[in-house]
């Protein structure tokens, strides 16, 4: 198998400097198709910045990014999304003034091709309701279909975010700390959910909860001060003394 068939995402010497400070340092990341791949590392290691580079919310200082063998280094964020690479954000990203169903519909609407049609009634979007409700059901939000999202509990918002992302049938999902700030029950639910939706797609996720990482992830990349420290499966990475040191400091 050649590299393009094997890896959905490859970066080469990916680097981002902020006014002389190197937040991402020469990162060569390869994500295998159909893997759940974790990107871990201490606070400030550059994980979110890597996500921002991959989705072009930030422009890399150096390096290239390939998705399915296509160089996307010069593409715009919305273009990358349309290639099937969809990201979530570290803080929950929902449309707070809309209902849960409307949130999902915003994602579904793009394929309908009427998003610029300012003369069509809102009811023309009702054809999407069935699929929207299906997705809400999938993430256990059927009770919240008509709730305004701003008032929903945090864990539910994150679930909604995943439903919205799934609406686009992404090939590659980038999840930035999907379980951050959640109680144990919610963490469990989201973990199950990620496992469920990982079929036929690739997931790259930033995650601090090592329990979640160990149960879900096929491969782990450890980032420290912007550079890759090590890579491997959970056992390999967790037994690496340098990883413990990165997390706990020199004393450990």
């Amino acid at each position, binding site marked *: 198998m050649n590299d393009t068939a094997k890896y959905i995402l490859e970066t080469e010497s990916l680097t981002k400097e902020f006014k002389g400070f190197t937040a991402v340092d020469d990162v060569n990341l390869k994500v295998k198709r159909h893997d759940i791949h974790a990107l871990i590392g201490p606070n400030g290691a550059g994980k979110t910045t890597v996500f921002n580079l991959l*989705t072009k*919310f930030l422009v890399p200082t150096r390096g290239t990014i390939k998705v399915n063998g296509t160089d996307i280094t010069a593409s*715009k*964020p*919305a273009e990358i*999304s*349309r290639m099937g690479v*969809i*990201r*979530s*954000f570290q803080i929950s*990203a*929902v*449309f*707070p*003034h*809309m209902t849960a169903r*409307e949130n999902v*519909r*915003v*994602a579904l*609407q*793009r394929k*309908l091709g*009427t*998003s*610029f*049609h*300012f*003369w*069509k*009634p*809102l009811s*023309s*979007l009702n054809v999407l309701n069935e699929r929207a409700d299906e997705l809400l059901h999938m993430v256990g939000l059927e009770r919240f279909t008509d709730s305004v999202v701003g008032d929903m509990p945090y864990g539910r918002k994150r679930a909604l975010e995943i439903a*919205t992302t799934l609406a*686009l049938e992404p090939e590659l999902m980038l999840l930035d700390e999907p379980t951050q700030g959640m109680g144990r029950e919610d963490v469990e639910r989201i973990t199950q959910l990620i496992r469920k939706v990982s079929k036929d797609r690739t997931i790259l996720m930033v995650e601090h909860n090592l329990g979640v990482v160990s149960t879900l992830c096929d491969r782990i990349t450890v980032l420290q001060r912007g550079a890759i420290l090590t890579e491997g499966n959970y056992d390999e990475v967790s037994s690496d003394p340098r990883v413990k040191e990165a997390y706990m400091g020199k004393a450990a």
Partner: protein
Amino acid sequence: MNTKVGYGIALALLLVAPFMIYPVFLMKLLCFALFACAFNLILGYGGLLSFGHAAFFGGAAYITGHVIKVWGLPTELGLLVGAGSAAALGYLIGMLAIRRQGIYFAMITLALAQMVYFIFISADFTGGENGLQGVPRGYALGIFDLQDNLTMYYFVLAVFVIGFLIIARAVYSPFGQILGAIRDNEDRATSLGYDVDRYKHLAFVLSAALAGLAGSTKTVVFQLASLTDVHWHTSGEVVLMTLLGGLGTIAGPAVGAGVIVTLQNYLASGPLGAWVPVVLGTIFVVCVLAFRRGIIGELHAMLKKSF
């Protein structure tokens, strides 16, 4: 359902109003109400503070005046040409401004609108300080003589209702849905694959076109386009009307426009004439400090609480 009844009552009132209130005043009010509703499309629903909407209102006012007076176009066509030119101008200004955020957007729209102002002040066809005078009102559909104030009023009311319906539809359309999503969370909308600038740009063009329609109609009513229409004061006034009425509510800006135009009218003819700007300024401050949601917004909130 409640809102439908509300709109029904409002329309009924507007239909009988000219028998109780001076029609020319009502027409002025409707023109500014349409202007404010159009402006709200970009401020309230697009989340962008344009400080240059006088360019569209006043630009269209002059163009309509010119094509009716000099080219002899029928009134309706004159309005369409005015709105169309405002849309084109909106497309150009939007192209330069739409990428900017917040205060930079306000500044660049103001700067470009000032350029438009200087063009109109120095162009020959505008009549300079005197304005473009003596624009004939013409005939509606070629038969109804608009020289009659009552006929003119119903014509203006029809234009207002059409404009208002276009705005309401745009807000509650697939496009409006994406616009709302962008205002709620721009990065998320981007990450879902929407080129957010193109949506804002379309909202800006629509807003410009309808602001233009308002300006064009005003020219026909007063048979005059003047520098006041393109002056930045007018850009400021429409911000005030929209905020006072209620940002991002469909009917709010129309109500805000009604209040401001009424105040201007009564204050200007009374002993407080010279104090109009001070009174408006005070209203603005009170509105920003105490009634953030504007008249209609506060009413909504009160109704919600009491049920």
